[in-house]
């Protein structure tokens, strides 16, 4: 029976018109994901050796253990947004002679299909194997592996349970993040040491394999809890209720409304991202990439000794501060295709409308930039280079992105499944993304060829700064373009697929 259900799920996906239309894109993206997984596996295999070189005074296992609780804490935020167990999946089966238990196990089992849950296999297992290879005891290491994997899955099912009980407001997420940062800070100065606690617990499991039963029991317990919860939930009216419950709890953006009509529009855009499947999952999938991809680049270019190192870091900076906006702003107007006529006829002039978009995108670049603020304490030079990239993004790239995003209007269904859904994207968008990234490369290469690399970077940063200061000029140009193109856009958005 389970087999039937799985087949249905597969058919649901493969037979959706969106999936078929964009098959090529999907293959392309599958490759990207595949490489990302290989990349993670690489980290997993070499992690033991990396930790050994970076922290020679501590055993790698202990270093790994120190970070575990923090990792679980951070992962929780991500899981909270990415993971969605929708009881709607089994709605068509509720009236059929199928055991309810089976359906719930199926629902919970299906939820395990998430990239997060590959981490035990991709990171923890290779790490354990390299530890065994270097002389750790097999039995103890195996117990440790079980315990860590159980904790990761515990997190998975705990989040599912918590999500059933309440939904997070943006402010609470920020609070949670700040608390974690504060703990890391206090840890750093040895005031409260969560890392020590983490180390003690997991090292104890390594030393006494019997302790591994504890995380396993926790996992079982939370699974039971989820099971009970869904058992009570699998009624049509309750499935509905939960959907509507979300609406009330999410008014965390009201602070923006103080900034008049521009703020009102910005708040609306945040709600758009927050409440619709597609933009929401876009942001979750982009965020970890922003944090993970630049690390090897930063590591390989450190310390900065020549212009090429500097440029690599500049490039990583473009990526860090601009990636989300590059991904989001491609479809900047398409996101609003379902209520575009309202935006044109409501009491908002085009200048305010464009200004709201512009400011919000600036905010979206500033948030990741500020996440990398700690680099300033590590190496001011690298921070300066990231800042150059930030300026270039804010001053030049942002304008280009909004400019191009008006050229390719396509209707988007906001709340349709996000993964492998490229409706509304076109090849032009991909080209545009590449173009935006490569313009600075070309500029830099020219200066590299005439041996004036640092001057090249200075010019990039300088023009970025000019662009930021002259944002009113950009906005005027964009408004003009928008007034001209809005009719075409509105017409495209009105079309039924």
């Amino acid at each position, binding site marked *: 029976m389970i087999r039937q259900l799985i087949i249905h799920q597969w058919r649901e996906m493969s037979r959706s018109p969106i999936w078929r239309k964009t098959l090529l894109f999907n293959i392309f993206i599958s490759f990207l994901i595949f490489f990302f997984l290989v990349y993670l596996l690489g980290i997993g295999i070499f992690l033991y050796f990396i930790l050994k070189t970076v922290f020679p005074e501590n055993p790698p296992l202990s270093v790994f253990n120190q970070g575990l609780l923090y990792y679980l804490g951070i992962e929780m935020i991500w899981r909270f947004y990415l993971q969605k167990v929708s009881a709607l999946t089994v709605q068509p089966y509720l009236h059929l002679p199928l055991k309810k238990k089976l359906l719930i196990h199926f629902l919970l089992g299906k939820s395990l299909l998430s990239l997060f849950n590959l981490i035990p296999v991709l990171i923890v297992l290779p790490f354990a194997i390299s530890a065994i290879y270097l002389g750790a005891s097999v039995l103890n290491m195996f117990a440790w592996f079980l315990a860590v994997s159980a904790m990761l899955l515990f997190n998975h099912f705990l989040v599912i349970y918590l999500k059933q009980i309440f939904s997070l407001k943006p402010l609470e997420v920020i609070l949670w993040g700040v608390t974690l940062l504060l703990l890391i800070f206090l840890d750093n100065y040895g005031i409260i040491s969560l890392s020590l606690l983490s180390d003690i617990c997991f090292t104890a499991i390594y030393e006494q394999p019997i302790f591994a039963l504890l995380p396993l029991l926790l996992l079982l317990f939370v699974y039971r809890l989820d099971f009970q919860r869904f058992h009570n939930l699998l009624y049509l009216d309750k499935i509905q209720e939960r959907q509507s419950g979300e609406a009330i709890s999410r008014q965390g953006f009201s602070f923006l409304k103080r900034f008049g009509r521009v703020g009102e529009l910005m708040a609306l855009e945040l709600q758009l991202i927050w409440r619709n499947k597609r933009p929401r999952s876009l942001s979750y999938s982009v965020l970890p990439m922003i944090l993970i991809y630049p690390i090897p680049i930063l590591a390989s270019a450190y310390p900065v000794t020549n212009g090429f190192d500097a440029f690599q870091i500049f490039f990583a900076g473009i990526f860090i501060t601009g990636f989300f906006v590059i991904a989001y702003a491609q479809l900047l107007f398409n996101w609003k295709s379902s209520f575009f006529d*309202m935006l044109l006829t409501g009491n908002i002039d085009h200048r305010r409308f464009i200004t709201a978009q512009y400011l919000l995108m600036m905010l979206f670049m500033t948030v990741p930039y500020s996440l990398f603020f700690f680099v300033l304490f590590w190496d001011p030079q690298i921070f300066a280079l990231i800042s150059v990239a930030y300026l270039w993004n804010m001053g030049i790239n942002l304008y280009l992105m909004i400019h191009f995003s008006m050229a390719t209007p396509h209707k988007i269904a906001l709340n349709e499944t996000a993964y492998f859904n490229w409706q509304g994207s076109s090849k032009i968008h991909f080209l545009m993304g590449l173009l935006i990234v490569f313009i600075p490369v070309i500029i830099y290469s020219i200066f590299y060829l005439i041996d004036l690399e640092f001057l090249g970077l200075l010019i990039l940063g300088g023009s970025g700064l000019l662009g930021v200061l002259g944002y009113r000029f950009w906005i005027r140009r964009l408004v003009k373009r928008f007034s001209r193109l809005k009719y075409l856009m509105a017409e495209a958005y009105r079309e039924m697929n």
Partner: protein
Amino acid sequence: MIEVRGLSKKYDRKTALDIPSLTISPGECFGLVGNNGAGKTTFLRLILDLVLPSQGSVASKGLDVTVSESWKRYTGSYLDESFLIEFLTPMEYFRFIANLQKVTSSQLRQQLQLLNGFFNEQIIEETKYIRQLSKGNQKKVGIAAALIGEPEIIILDEPFANLDPRSVIQLLRILQHIRQERTVTLIISSHNLNHITEICERIALLDNGRIIQDIQTDEHTLKTLERYFSGEEEV
């Protein structure tokens, strides 16, 4: 209030609308009737600057709508679902519109009070997103939003279609009530001849993009229109 000069809209050389001259005065209720594809929605979209005319212009209070955006301040409109923000609850949507119109929350509450009967005790307290509402309720939300901020011009496309009989009567009452309270220009399209003749004193009959009749309503209007639509009489 609204002045149309030499207006035409062509799609691939096919003329969708052609109105050489038309004036709608303040306080007037202007009803548009015609078969599907006659150009009613196109005309409304041209007034709202959603579609660029092929020729000619629409002026609102003397200003060309494609040039000046000031008409947005005093115009409330609802044509179709693309005016609704699907991921907001009805109340969030009303508040959004109210804030754009600089209407305070107490004013908003007052203005929505008027619509209580129309909403039939639903909608205001609704915690579902607009996309989860029924088509009829979505329409009610859109129409209500068009009335927020006491606009001087109200433009509605087929407001009576898809509503239950009770709501239709309520809506007619509300529109009449608004017209008694203040000077408001109504531009409404409809298939339903009964309803439109009930509130509008001026009716334009559109056929293939042309206004073939522009009449002040009297007791014979309904008959005339019915005859036209049943094909008995060439008008």
